[in-house]
């Protein structure tokens, strides 16, 4: 498990989402990347229903990742995170009285997985209630464990197939440039996906309350 960076790729002007994804695929293949199956990430949103006096209610996101098919990640908005068994979904159903599933807010990301040398690239389409909202690209540099060390290298790689639209160091890492990535890798990746999903959600529905 190396250092992962998730970013959004803007849809090319005059092109559909699928066409833009195809362009990225083509660029990767020209570079020499090899396709290795597919991947998916999904996210469900839960509203807390119980009124805890004096505390602002936090949203709970429950996420799944095809890289860790037996686990289930629970992330409180801006708060603690946990990694649980896949049974966690069943538990959430039992906790219906405390957390309510906002079905309309379910976000999914599906796409292809590519390998190029020690890089792992996942190009996905983000869909929200069966409509495509945007394109995500996840790049993982497997041999390195310290985000701050390999960021320039990862950035140069992303520029080679994304052009100038490369993000800055993800905010997850800004807080711990020297810290180890490995032990909490899954959470760091899922936090980045969550940020991306929220960004896309807000972008599509300006002014409306996401909650």
């Amino acid at each position: 498990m190396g250092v992962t960076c998730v970013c959004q790729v803007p849809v090319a002007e005059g092109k559909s989402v699928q066409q833009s994804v195809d362009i990225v695929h083509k660029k990767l293949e020209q570079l020499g990347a090899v396709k290795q199956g597919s991947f998916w990430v999904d996210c469900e949103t839960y509203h807390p229903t119980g009124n805890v006096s004096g505390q602002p209610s936090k949203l709970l996101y429950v996420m799944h990742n095809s890289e860790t098919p037996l686990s289930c990640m629970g992330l409180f908005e801006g708060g603690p995170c946990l990694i649980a068994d896949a049974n966690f979904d069943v538990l959430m159903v039992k906790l219906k009285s405390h957390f309510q599933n906002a079905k309309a807010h379910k976000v999914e990301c599906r796409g292809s997985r590519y390998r190029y040398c020690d890089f792992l690239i996942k190009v996905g389409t983000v869909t929200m209630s069966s409509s495509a909202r945007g394109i995500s690209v996840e790049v993982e540099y497997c041999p390195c464990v310290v985000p701050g060390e390999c960021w320039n290298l990862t950035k140069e790689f992303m520029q080679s197939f994304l052009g100038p639209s490369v993000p800055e160091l993800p905010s997850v890492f800004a807080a711990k440039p020297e810290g180890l990535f490995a032990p909490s890798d899954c959470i760091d990746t899922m936090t980045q996906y969550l940020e991306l999903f929220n960004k896309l959600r807000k972008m599509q529905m300006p002014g409306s309350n996401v909650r």
Partner: protein
Amino acid sequence: MADALHVGVNLDAFSHAISGIQALRSSVSRVFESLKDGMKNRETLEGREKIFISGFQEQLQSVNRDLNELERLSGLVGRPSESHPLHNSGLLSLDPVQDKTPLYSQLLQAYKWSNKLQYHAGLASSLLNQQSLKRSANQMGASAKRRPKVQPSTLVLPPQYVDDVISRIGRMFPDLTIELFRPNGTSAVLLVTLGKVLKAIVVMRSLFIDRTVVRGFNENVYTEDGKLDIWSKSQYQVFQKVTDHATTALLHYQLPQMPDVVVRSFMTWLRSYIKLFQSPCQRCGRFLQDGLPPTWRDFRTLEAFHDTCRM
């Protein structure tokens, strides 16, 4: 034919010479015989002395005559076999049937060949001694006989000394963690952890580095039964490349008389990988080439280069 005639003359001279020697011996023994007997009893003292001296003179003259005769004969006999370079095997040349048994010409050829071989081997050994690339006991072979003390002493060092050298190197580089294992006998195996970048397994023989494998920081260095895994290579291409370069470095840093300097130079070189993912190539200025960071480190300047940029 000429050979046969020559031999005949020789044999004749031999028999003459032998009789000459016999004559010489008898005349010499006659001299001593008369000396032993002393002067014969005569009437006057003068007569006694006169007869004794004249007899003695006569005998000495005959000895002289015999000796001259022998010297003359010995000139005729010559020294055929001693002067030949092949000694007695030179007599094979006397075999008259050359066509059927060409032993003598074959012998000469073999002799020339072995002479040349000895000469070339001498040249090769002096050249090889200048290039001291001896890394193991097997290669020392013949030279071990000549220099029995220098080589073995560096190969058979007490484990305590090896431990000292390694721990001194470990203290020199704070970002280098060196763990020492002795899984089989006295040979040490080092597990070198460089920052949060890589782990290298270095197999030693005494203070000579025998083999090295470099793996990622998050890769496993132990096998399932908890032993150091010194064989399997890294799953990442970048560390496979670094392993290749580290093996090159092992062959580059060679100084058989001072093995501790070699280990220290190697560790200094390995330490330059602390910025494996951070330093761009010194030639092309880029981070990636064919998906790999600059994996080569110059042996002297320790600058980072891509494998294809280092020429």
